[in-house]
C-alpha cells in the first residue's frame, strides 16, 4: 500500500495523541563528548550552553576517557572500522574472543558471548535457552528488553511482586511441575536504584531447583568491592547461571552487550539466539575500547570508589536539603515528586539553571510515582555536585517542596 493520505493522517493523529498525553520525547542535541560537563543545544536552534550532566549512565566516567579513546584509535588502525558480517560468517576477530574471555574472568563465569547490545542479549536469551516445558519467573520491575525476550520465547511466563521473596517462593512452589525454572531479575533496578536481594534469590533457587538470570547492566563495573556487580555485592559471585550486561553504560558507554554464564547456556545463545545470528558483529573499535576499559577497572578500584563516594555525598546533600529520595546505595538516586507535571516543570527549571536531568513519569514508572532520576558518575567532582545542589535547592524552594514528604507532596500537587 502506498503511504496514502489516510495513512498519513492516522499517524499524525497518533503522534498528536502522544503529545497531548504529555508523553512526547524530544531529543536534546549535545555538541560535545559525553562527560560531567556537556554542551547542549535545546530547544533545537537555541544557543549552545554548558551544563552539568546528572542523567547519564556514564557511571565510571569512562565514556570519554583518554586511555579508552587511545585504545579505540589503535583498534581502528589495527582491525579496521567495520566487519560487514555477522559473527558466524566472517565477523569474529581475535579481539572479539579476547573480550569474551576477559568478560568471563571479570564476571566470574564460564563463558561469554557478545551481542550487538544488551537489549539484543535479553531479546535472544530466553528463546535460545528455554522451551514450552520451562517457566521464567521475573521480578515485575525488570527491564523492558527482558519482558520482550520472555515474550519471544515459548517458555511459560510468570512474575513476582518487586523484590518480594515470599511471592517468589510461592511461584517457585507453584511451578515445581515444570522442567526448568528460571528466576529473572535485574541487579540494580534502573528506575529506583535499589538492589535485587540476590543472596536470598540464590538460596531460593537452590531450595527449589531453579536457575538464576541476572541483568547487571546498571551494576557491572562498580557495584561490589571490586566492581564485579550485584553478585559480588551480595556474596554470590560465581553462583549466577546467566548474566547479561551492557558495554553501553559504565564500561565505556559505546554499545554492545553480552550473555555470560554457564558454558552450555552461552553455547545455546551462539547457536540459537536470533539477535546474535542475524545482526552484525560489534565493531572492532568498540571491542578495542572495551578491552582497555577492562584493563583500567581490573587494575584499580579508584573509579568505582570515587563513584561510591559521590553517590553517598549526593544522597546526603539531597536529604539535608529536604528532598524525598529513594533510599539505597547505588549511584541511581531518584528524587521523588509523584506528580508528572511537577517532574517535567522541575526538570525544565533545572535546565535553566544549567543542570541536565530528566523527569520520569507514567508509563515509564507507575502512575503517581513521577520523579527526577539523578545518576552519579566518577567524572563528577565535588564542585559539580555542589553546583547541582544549589540549583536543586533554588528550584525546590520555588515550588515550595523542601522538607515535604510523600503525603504532603501528593496533597499539594496531586498524583
Amino acid at each position, binding site marked *: 500500500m502506498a503511504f496514502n493520505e489516510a495513512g498519513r493522517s492516522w499517524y499524525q493523529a497518533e503522534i498528536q495523541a502522544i503529545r497531548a498525553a504529555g508523553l512526547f520525547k524530544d531529543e536534546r542535541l549535545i555538541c560535545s563528548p559525553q562527560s560531567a560537563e556537556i554542551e547542549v543545544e535545546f530547544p533545537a536552534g537555541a544557543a549552545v550552553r554548558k551544563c552539568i550532566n546528572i542523567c547519564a549512565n556514564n557511571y565510571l566516567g569512562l565514556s570519554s576517557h583518554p586511555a579508552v579513546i587511545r585504545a579505540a584509535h589503535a583498534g581502528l588502525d589495527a582491525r579496521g572500522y567495520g566487519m560487514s558480517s555477522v559473527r558466524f560468517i566472517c565477523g569474529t576477530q581475535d579481539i572479539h574472543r579476547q573480550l569474551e574471555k576477559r568478560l568471563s574472568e571479570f564476571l566470574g563465569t564460564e563463558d561469554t558471548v557478545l551481542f550487538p547490545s544488551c537489549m539484543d542479549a535479553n531479546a535472544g536469551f530466553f528463546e535460545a535457552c528455554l522451551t514450552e516445558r520451562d517457566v521464567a519467573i521475573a521480578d*515485575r520491575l525488570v527491564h523492558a528488553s527482558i519482558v520482550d525476550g520472555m515474550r519471544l520465547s515459548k517458555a511459560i511466563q510468570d512474575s513476582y511482586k518487586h523484590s518480594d521473596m515470599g511471592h517468589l517462593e510461592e511461584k517457585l512452589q507453584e511451578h515445581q511441575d515444570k522442567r526448568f525454572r528460571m528466576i529473572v531479575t535485574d541487579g540494580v533496578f534502573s528506575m529506583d536504584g535499589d538492589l535485587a536481594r540476590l543472596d536470598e534469590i540464590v538460596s531460593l533457587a537452590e531450595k527449589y531447583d531453579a536457575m538464576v538470570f541476572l541483568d547487571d547492566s546498571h551494576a557491572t563495573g562498580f557495584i561490589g568491592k571490586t566492581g564485579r556487580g550485584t553478585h559480588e555485592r551480595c556474596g554470590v559471585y560465581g553462583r549466577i547461571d546467566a548474566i547479561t550486561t551492557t558495554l553501553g553504560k559504565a564500561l565505556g558507554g559505546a554499545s554492545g552487550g553480552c550473555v555470560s554464564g554457564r558454558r552450555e547456556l552461552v553455547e545455546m545463545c551462539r547457536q540459537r539466539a536470533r539477535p546474535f545470528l542475524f545482526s552484525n558483529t560489534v565493531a572492532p573499535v568498540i571491542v578495542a575500547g572495551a578491552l582497555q576499559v577492562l584493563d583500567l577497572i581490573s587494575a584499580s578500584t579508584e573509579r568505582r570508589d570515587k563513584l561510591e563516594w559521590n553517590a553517598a555525598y549526593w544522597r546526603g546533600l539531597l536529604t539535608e536539603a529536604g528532598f524525598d529520595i529513594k533510599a539505597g546505595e547505588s549511584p541511581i538516586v531518584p528524587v521523588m515528586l509523584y506528580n508528572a507535571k511537577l517532574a517535567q516543570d522541575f526538570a525544565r527549571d533545572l535546565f535553566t539553571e544549567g543542570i541536565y536531568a530528566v523527569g520520569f513519569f507514567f508509563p515509564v514508572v507507575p502512575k503517581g510515582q513521577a520523579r527526577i532520576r539523578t545518576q552519579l558518575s566518577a567524572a563528577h567532582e565535588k564542585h559539580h555536585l555542589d553546583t547541582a545542589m544549589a540549583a536543586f535547592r533554588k528550584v525546590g524552594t520555588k515550588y515550595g517542596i523542601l522538607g515535604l514528604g510523600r503525603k504532603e507532596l501528593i496533597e499539594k500537587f496531586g498524583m
Partner: protein
Amino acid sequence: MDDLTKLVSNYIAKEYLVEGSEVTETMTLISSGIVDSFSMVPLKRFLEKKCNIKIADACATAEAFDTVQNIVALVRRVQNE
C-alpha cells in the same frame, strides 16, 4: 459478592496489591498501572485453570482485564460460549 467475583478479587489483591489494600469491582487495574500487560499473563492463566476455560489471546485485551467487573464478565462470556 458472588463466588467468581470473590475469587477474582482475592487473587488480584494477593497477586498485585501491597498487603492490606483492598480491591473493588470497578477499580481500574491496567489503565491505572496496577497491573501491566506483562504481569497480566499469570492472571489469564489463573482464570483458565480455576474456571476451566480457554481465553483466546484476542479476547485478553487491556479493556477486558481492566476491572474485576470486566474480568468476571469475560469469564462468564467464555463459559457460555
